[in-house]
């Protein structure tokens, strides 16, 4: 991991950060296995350099960005965000990245573009988990945001954490971070960003539509059909004797994002 310099951000929380050790050893990245320790053990095989991100669809300027150019040409910021996993645990992670909106402005989306679709790399020879006999998801992993969600200043493309470039298990070399949504929305190792008119398909919604919606906003009052979302365990807090803490609406980012969803029934659009 190479050091990255980044400016502080007013969007950062001052909550206690989850240790680097925990952030980089407890991951969900099913392309490298379904166990929490699997990505740290197996993701080293992913070749993250050179890496390009293709931007296409309804944009004025289709482009292919080399990640190192994106890093050089962007004003990197450190964003210390809460991360709430749909499984009921959470972390506080010091990401390094730049607003997704910056990239969107550079490619000049057309008026017809309503959504942004994201795609992860699909490389069976480098990803042990996608070779599995039991495919857990349809590869490649895909995600999406409404364009106005993508333009929200909290949404970032992260290229690092703890002041260094991203470890592979955390989604190197570039990933999405949308802190008011469940962690699975934060698609890793992005190779393609498309601007589209219709709501794009998303991997977990495809896998179990009744359990994972397109929006996947953190919401303590809308439970996962199989488990409660009212509380969460903060990783690294209390060890064996960790106490659950209440989950906050929009993961505590309601002030910045609640207006995106005015008038929407969040039970229906979960």
């Amino acid at each position, binding site marked *: 991991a190479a050091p990255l310099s980044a400016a502080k951000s007013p969007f950062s929380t001052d909550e206690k950060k989850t240790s680097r*050790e*925990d952030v980089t*050893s*407890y991951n969900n990245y*099913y392309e490298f296995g*379904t166990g*929490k*320790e699997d990505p740290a053990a197996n993701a080293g095989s992913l070749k993250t350099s050179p890496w390009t991100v293709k931007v296409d669809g309804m944009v004025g300027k289709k482009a292919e960005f080399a990640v190192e150019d994106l890093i050089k040409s962007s004003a990197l910021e450190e964003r210390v965000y809460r991360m709430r996993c*749909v*499984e009921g*645990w959470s972390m506080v992670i010091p990401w390094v990245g730049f607003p997704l909106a910056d990239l969107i402005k550079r490619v000049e989306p057309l008026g017809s573009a309503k959504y942004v679709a994201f795609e992860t790399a699909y490389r069976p020879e480098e990803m042990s988990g996608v070779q*599995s*006999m*039991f495919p*857990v*998801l349809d590869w490649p992993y895909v995600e999406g945001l409404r364009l106005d969600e993508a333009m929200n200043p909290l949404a970032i493309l992260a290229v690092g954490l703890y002041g260094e470039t991203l470890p592979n298990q955390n989604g190197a070399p570039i990933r999405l971070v949308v802190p008011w949504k469940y962690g699975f929305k934060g698609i890793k190792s992005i190779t393609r960003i498309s601007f589209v008119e219709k709501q794009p398909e998303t991997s*977990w919604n495809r*896998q*179990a539509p009744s359990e994972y919606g397109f929006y996947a906003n953190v919401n303590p009052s809308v*439970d996962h059909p*199989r*488990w*409660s979302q*009212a*509380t969460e*365990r903060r*990783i*690294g807090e209390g*060890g*064996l*004797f*960790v*106490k*659950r803490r209440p989950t906050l609406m929009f993961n505590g980012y309601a002030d910045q994002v609640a207006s995106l969803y005015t008038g929407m029934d969040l039970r229906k659009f979960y």
Partner: protein
Amino acid sequence: MAGRASVQGEKKAFALPQVPKIAVYLVGFIPAVWLFYAGVTDQLGADPMRYLEQGLGLWALRFLIATLAITPLRQLFNVNLLRYRRAVGLLAFYYAALHLLTYLVLDQGLDLPAIVADIVKRPYITIGMATFVILVPLAVTSNNAAIRRMGGQAWAKLHRLVYAAAIGAALHFLLVVKSWPPEPIIYAAIVAVLLGYRLIRSSVKKPSARRRPA
């Protein structure tokens, strides 16, 4: 479960060195002791509570599977481990109890309303609780006095509930995970094979047909 055990005595069982039953318990509790020790000394990774909870549950399922494997092992491979079955079955119960205790105390912090809501609303927890409830009478009657008091047939009938417990445990595991990862599927398949074996055997071989003239 022990129904047909005595009929099979004619064939000479594969001679295994006998170990005292207490050794089964001593070895059987090693995973629990290790999990607790590693948890308290912060060696269980980023999410130790979950690791302990899942580890204990997994061992309960493994011991349950081991109990169910004893009869087919004897019938198919002439390996007789019958004298250890009670210990293995009780280990399954003790691990299930520790698993439940971890959920109640460490996971939920004895938050009764949350626990009751979980049991009522979450099928995987409902099934898990039901599985534990099933195991209680089996554990309570896992002693010679109970067999004498109940009579062998009634006792054997009661202990067939272990099949329901195995199904419950496998289902509980399948329902707690996202998507269909291999591990719970493999455990469910093993349970299905062990129960399917009994189903096929009982439909193929009628007990009366196996009785020999004196």
